[in-house]
């Protein structure tokens, strides 16, 4: 009955679509994946971790309750209780009682 009206609707929909795609891209860019691992100390004492990354060994002291971002590309971690774990670089590690739980 009113074909021209429907055509206009089509053009508008395309504009809408573009806007939608833009919004999606923007939100995608905003939430770009964070890949580095993070270590949180849930103990009451400062814990010393030994991190082996890029061929070098480094000791990191972690205050109680703090979170540190480590090894973006994978590393080895020696925990206060003597356990050694390897991280790919996307994990969240919680230190509890000298041990670690990896998520």
């Amino acid at each position: 009955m009113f074909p021209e009206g429907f055509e206009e609707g089509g053009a508008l929909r395309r504009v809408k679509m573009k806007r939608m795609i833009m919004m999606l891209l923007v939100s995608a860019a905003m939430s770009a994946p964070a890949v580095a691992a993070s270590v949180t100390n849930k103990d009451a004492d400062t814990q010393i971790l030994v991190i082996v990354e890029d061929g070098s060994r480094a000791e990191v002291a972690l205050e109680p309750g703090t979170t540190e971002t480590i090894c973006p590309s994978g590393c080895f971690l020696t925990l206060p209780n003597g356990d050694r774990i390897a991280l790919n670089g996307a994990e969240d590690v919680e230190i509890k009682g000298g041990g670690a739980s990896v998520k």
Partner: protein
Amino acid sequence: MRAVRRLSLSCEGGLLPVFRLVSVFLALLLCAATPVLAQPAAAPAVETATPLQQANADLDKAGAQLNAIRERVDIDVDDDARLVQLKIEAEALNRSILAISVATRPRLDAIKARQAELGDPPAEGAPAEADVVVEERKKLTVERNEINALTGEAENLSIEATKLSNRITEIRRQLFSDAILKRTEISSDLFSEASGAIAEETQTLGRTVTAWMQFVWKFKRMQLLGAVALSLMAALVLLSGSYRLFSPYITRAARQEKPHYITRLSVAFWSTVLPTMAAAAFAGASYFFLDTFKVLRPDIAPIVAIALGVLVAIYFLGQLANAVLSPGDGHWRLVRVSDRGAQLLWLLIFSMAVVNGADYFLGTISEVLGSPVVLTVVKSFFASIVIGALLLVTAFIKPVLRQGETPDSPGRPWPRSIFVLLVLTGLGLIFAALLGYVGMARFVATQIVVTGAVIVTMYIGFLSGRAVSATNAFAETAVGKRLEERFGLGQVALDQIGLAAGLAIYLLLFVFFVPLILLQWGFQVADIESWAYRIFTEIRIGTITISLVGILAGVLLFVAGLVITRWFQRWVDGNVLARSQVDAGVRNSVRTAVGYAGVALAGLVGISAAGINLSSLALVAGALSLGIGFGLQNIVSNFVSGLILLAERPFKVGDWVVAGTTEGFVRRISVRATEIETFQRQTVIVPNSVLINGQVGNWTHRNKLGRVEIPVSVHGGNDPRHVQQLLVEVVRGQQGLLRNPEPTVVFQGFSSATLDFEIRAFLADILNGTGVKSDLRAAILERFREEKIAIGAPAAAEVPVKISPESAELITAILEQATDKVRPPASRRKARPPADETPET
């Protein structure tokens, strides 16, 4: 000095890079696809065997591999290309070591959990545990220690692997600076030694080549001819195809007396690139077929390869110089130089290319034949001096023309800056060679010749890309014309294609020429490969890693999802809904809902394919929700209202609605706003929340039934019942009105002037109301005229006057007096007619 030769290898890599690059990018695409599959495949293998033993075995293997790589580094300590490869292997090994130890983590967690379940061992004095528990405790502790030991081992291995990879980088850096800065004492001894070697080398070369040729001619004749024929075919196909595609761009049409600058530019670029690509294809195909047919021998293959590569490079340079300088035809010259100057310049540039190419060719021969290093040094020494001399000669020719001078006029010397630059570079090359820095001289000479040429080509290509993407430029090209003819493309479409073509040319330039220059500078294909791989898979900014391939895949999946959604939408709408006779409103709602659901789904799929964690999206959504609470409130409320409108459907597309002051037809219901087209054809966009919260009148909600009212007034003197009767008759006879509910005629009011009636009748389709009303009015008027019924009020009001008897007498008397007075002049008028009365006659 071997380093110099390595460098030469790295540089000659630049001669056949087009094929390599293509294969590199293909490989890249494959690489980008495989890692996803590779990792999960490895994990179950570890878990099925006893995990720890498996991990131990893997680690031992990794250690062995690391040692092997280390040994190979020691062996190939001066081979740049191998070192790059080894570095990549070391890095891969490092990753696999990490993966091995990561794979042991679940077991460690399980042990820890079990240990926690068992609790602490009983304190002293407490009753002893069962033997089974003690046994298990012991076993768990042992295993935990083993895992820790294993991880510690992996840690050490990883450190070693990283150190090795760093060492390789260091070695390569050293290699490069050695090659450039190594100094050879230039003395008469060197030359006498070299002259002895050269005689020997000539003999060996002659012997080798003759033996090979005789052998080939006798036993491999068919293969040789076949290889040449096949590669010629490949080159011809490429050449003719590109000529057909780009014909106005690569041939200098004789008809054009004074070609435009853009035309000259495009011709220069394409007439350089396309034949060079054809030549490179020929060379590459020849080598490939000769190699496949086993015509080449290990000692001959490098010579053939370098010969083909050098020839292609020289051809490229000659072609480029020809395109830019156009020594034969001044009208096609890109730079403003005289005819004589162009010829000289062409000759000089071509000679430099030949000398440089010969240097590399002869260097490779020496290397293959195992001649003494001094020979290579001496060859490069002479080549550098010749190129330096050629540069000096170039500085002293006089090619420059002023604006407006004809090409055949005598040229002027170079501008001072260029002159100084040429002289300094030439002298620098000669002195560097004389001082013994042959490697550096050779490197610089090659840079001047090849990198200069590549940059010039890039620049011309860049300009030509800009020319193609200029407004309406593409429509003028043969490709544009053909597209226009075949597909009937409009100007806008052609212009857009032109823009895309321009961008494609930029991309081509970037993808092909930047790696070419990098190869020139001594980087290896593997270097560029790994950079490209890194760029595509992980760009690291701080702690955030972005993968271009992932994002690209996400976007592609999203687009695919959109296409599928559109298709599904059309299918549901056209096939299912249309045939099930659902009304238009439901169809519209379903279509819209399917569309939005599809977009949302495609978005989710795309986002997860791009490697974006949906939980981090939730974080963003959480951050946004505050903003939504304040700023986006309206939009969200409109959005929700839109969803309600789609579900509830108080009106549908095509309905006649009244919302506030807006009245018209609904044209489109989208999720944020609804478009209403008024009768004046103005489109009013009404936010959905207004439609949901406010009152909306819909003339055509359940059905299109509607009542029309027509007020009719007739003269007050008419008989109301007669008029009413007439109106009822007329209304009953009118087409388009419903009989049930019955139309009625109401006598609404009367005054001294008019009688007012109203006709109330129902219509099946209110949209036809105007037409029916108009017809009805016409019919009523016709009937009234037929029946001689006076319409409307009299022209003036009839006013009754009251008068007292005295006044009446007085007025009568006055009137009589007046009549008497009027009479005598009337009698006098007969005797003497006055002049002022003539108009009456």
